[in-house]
Every structure is written in structure tokens, then in C-alpha cells.
């Protein structure tokens, strides 16, 4: 995963969420179809894709998809 576009494709293809670029920066409560189970599934996907552990506690602090992406690619 090299860009936010790859992240968007992950959300669309693997999680099946009908999100667009405009939804990435919006609050999670405004993301279409989003629920807490998606957060858990997204964490598992990101860990498998990046090979890095993503603590649930940190992800719970994120307020948007963009912040979750930043968490995943942070060095």
C-alpha cells in the first residue's frame, strides 16, 4: 500500500464499502456503511498488507479513515 488511493481500493474491494475520496477525510460516523466491525476488519487487513501491528486502542482514537491510514503507514 503506497498511497491513499491504494487505501481507498482496499476499503472498496476488500471491505466492500462504497466510499469515495471525499469520504476519506470525513468523520467515521459519516462514512457510508461504516460500523465498528469494519474497524476490526480494517485493522486485520492493514496488518496483513503492511506487515505491521496496529493496536486497536490507537485505531479507536482515530476520527477518520485518513487518520487510520496515517496510523498504518507511520514509520
Amino acid at each position, binding site marked *: 500500500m503506497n498511497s491513499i488511493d491504494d487505501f481507498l481500493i482496499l476499503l472498496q474491494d476488500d471491505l466492500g464499502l462504497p466510499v469515495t475520496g471525499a469520504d476519506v477525510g470525513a468523520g467515521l460516523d459519516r462514512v457510508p456503511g461504516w460500523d465498528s*466491525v469494519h474497524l*476490526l*476488519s480494517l*485493522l*486485520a487487513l492493514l496488518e496483513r498488507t503492511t506487515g505491521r501491528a496496529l493496536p*486497536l486502542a490507537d485505531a479507536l482514537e482515530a476520527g477518520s479513515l485518513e487518520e487510520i491510514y496515517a496510523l498504518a503507514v507511520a514509520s
Partner: protein
Amino acid sequence: MPWGPEDVERVARERIGTLAGLVARFAESARGTLVLNTLPLPRRFAAQLVDHRSRARLGAVWREANARLLRLAEEHERVVVLDLDPLVGEGVPVVEPRLSQYTRAHLSPALLAAYAREIGHLARHRAGQVKKALVLDLDGTLWGGILGEDGPDGIETGTDGTHRGGAHFAFQRVVGQLAAQGVLLAAVSKNDPEPVGEVLRGHPGMFLREGDFVRVVANWRPKHDNLAELAEALNLGVDSFVFVDDSPYECGLVRHELPGVSVVPVNGEPALHTEALLRDGWFDAPELTREDVTRVAQYRDELVRKDFLDSFDSLDEYLRQLRVEVHLVERRPDRGGPALPTDPAHQPVQPDDPAAGALRGACPPRRSGGACPRRPGRRPLRGQRHRGRGVHAPARRHRPHRQLPAQLPGVLPRHRADRALCRAATRPRTRRPGGAREPPGHTEEHQGQGLLPEERLRPGPGRAHDAHRHGSRLPAQRHDRDVRARPRGPARAARARVHFTEIPGDDGS
């Protein structure tokens, strides 16, 4: 609370017993299909037992429980138990820990997706959308390379050649395994037919042979056209086809033109062909029947028959293509000799048979033997007819006395030969002085001239109808009026017919 394998065994026995009771209740009272699944053993349970002996015991107990589950499908017809172990064996994770812990979803989304795929194919089958035929591309799919460019010696297949050749051979073995269970195999390839036939017949590296396919279509036409024609020839819908091709262009074209065809794209790595083909259970069925196993031969025979029927436009052409020859030989009683045919199943009418006695008339019994030595793909036919007192009725093996079915193209040659022999034996006094008269109902030359064979074979007024009206249980036949004119009772049993018994041998003279 600490636990051990014996606790798991006890709980498993109780739960499986409860489940078996529920399944039995379902089988008694409900309709539809009940789908159960086996339970994979996650390592996080086995690893909680620190000694290997206990772990082994746990594994045995767990698998015994799964085996009981699987056997429920043997005990109840409408119960299907999907085994998840093969899915787990492919590397699908059993558990997603976070989902299991936080949402109590104890099977991972990946495993659930694979499970749903299996159930989807089961539901498709239950809905009647059955896949029956596997249609394969050749170049790059069944073998490596391009036959038209590399030649038969240049293609890659076989166990003693290249690695890629071995992979193609392994793929062919899997295809052969499916075919052995009733999946119809066909090949559709953009190639010239001659080299394709040469490879399928004689290439030493091929596992599949020409006889394994119900049809090999090698030409340069669009593949979707060939698939549509193949479906018509097999009397199947294209939605019963699974098409495998390594060309994205061909796969896309078939998908676009024939959306009902399930397309399995494979790529340039033949080691992955098998995975691609088996990823979906296209040919899954709850149970394999005897008919499934023999389906390939049935469809192949049907294709041969259809090809033959399609190869002529008129009845005369049809009869010419049968290449039937009828030879009549005079059998003189004073010369003795065995009656024709010599088949052990032959049961001639005995002199003291009441039926024969009732028919014995002024005309001395003479026999005319008939042999029909050349029939495409069949053994010679022989028969004999007694002028004046009916016909020897040789018993057919496994097929009791049977008359002329009017609408079975597959048996038409024999009956045409029957008629020809009957006509030749009874008609012309100029050629056979003292011969029997033409039967009154003998109107072969006037029936349906100009009609297609199928139309000729339909029972029509004056044929099947007459026969049934007069009490005959036999299908339509040509001598209806002749039947009416004959005496009833024992004499009827020996009424004049010409029958043939298939026996190997020479001309029977």
C-alpha cells in the same frame, strides 16, 4: 477451569448427539436441504495443552466428532455437511482474533467467505443450474506452446519433458478425474483440426486422449459460436458449460457473448491451472449417481447419432449412407444344414409347435436367409423368413420380440434392413417364382417421399394408429393391414415377419 482431552470428548459426544437428534427430526418433518459444517481445530486450543500426548488425544477426539458430523450426510439424504478442513488446508485462517474476541465471530471473514462460496455452488445445484460440461482451450491450457507454430513435437506436455510440460500433464490428470465422474469434456481451440487430432491420438505426453472428449472443435471461428453450436449438438444450454482458456481476450469475449457460460481464466503459469479450475465447485453435486458416471458415453453416442442424422438431407441419402446391403440366399430343405442364424439364442419354431402347425399351409416351407453384412459400426445382421408359414423368430438377447419402432432413429438401420429383406423376399414373382405376395399393407414406396427421415419415422395415420386400434401393443409398423388380415390366436404369434439376429460371422450362406 482446567480442561483436558477427556472433557472435550465428553462435550463433543453430547453436542454431536444433540445435533444428530435435530438432524433426524429435520429429516422426518422438514423439506429442503440442511447444511452443516465441520469444525476446524484452531491451534490456540491445541497449544493450551503442553504435552504432545494430550494434544494428539485432543486432535483424535476433535476429528472423531467431525467424522460423526460428516456421516450424518450418509444417514440422511437431504443433509449436506461441508468439510471446512480442505479450506483451512489452503491457508485460510480459521480465526480472526479481534473479531472473535470483540464481536464473538469465531470464524474468520476469509473462512466464512470460502464457506459461503461452497454453499453458493450447492444452492446453484439445488436450483437446477447444473454445470455438465467442461470446455477447454488447447494451446496454453491443455498443453504449453502453440501447436500451429511449434508443431506436435514442440508443445509442452508430459512427465518426462519440461517442468511446464509436467504441470500441463498434471492439469490433464485433474481434468480426467472430473471426466471420470460424469463431467463432459470438450475442446474448443483455434487450430487446424488435423494437428489437433494427431496430438490427441498419438502424442506420448498427453494424458487425455481423443476418446475422452465428447467433441473436439478445432477451427478458426469465434469460440462463442463454437460453444453455442456445441451446446446445441449436446442438447444442453450454454449455461451448463464451464469454459477454461488462457487468453484474456477469448475469456472476455465468451463472457460478453454468452453470459451464462462460467469462464475460468487461467494464465501462463500451468502450475496454477488446477487451482483455478477447482477454486469453485462448478461440478459439485450432493451425490454421484450411476447415470452421472455413464453420462459421457451417452452424450458421445448421442453426438455420433446426431452427426449422422445431420449428414444427409433426404431419406435416400440417408439410406445410401447406411451402406446397408441385403443378400438373399435360397435355403433348400433337402440340403439340411443349420437354420440361420447360428446364434445360440436363436429359437426356431419347432415342427410340433401349435403356432407353426396352425400356419402350415399348402405352400411347402422354404426359408430365405438374409444377411446384412455392412452396417456402420455394427455387426452384421442376419435373419430368415419362411415363406408360407411365417418366420423364424430368433430371440434377441435381453430384448424380447420387438417390432419396428417408428420414431427411434438409432434403430432405424435395422428396421430398414428388415423391410428391405421382407420386400425382396416377398415381392417379385418374376425374380422369385412361387414367392409370397407383397403384403397388402406394404406401401413403402408411397410413404412420405420427400420428407425428412424424422418425419418419415413419426407414427402416422395408417401405421401406429391402425396397429393400436387393432389391439397391438407394438409401435407403428408397416404391415398394419397385413396384421389385420392374419388369424388370431396361436397363429398370430408366428405371423410373417422378418427379424434379424446379430451374430458375428460371414455371409451365413
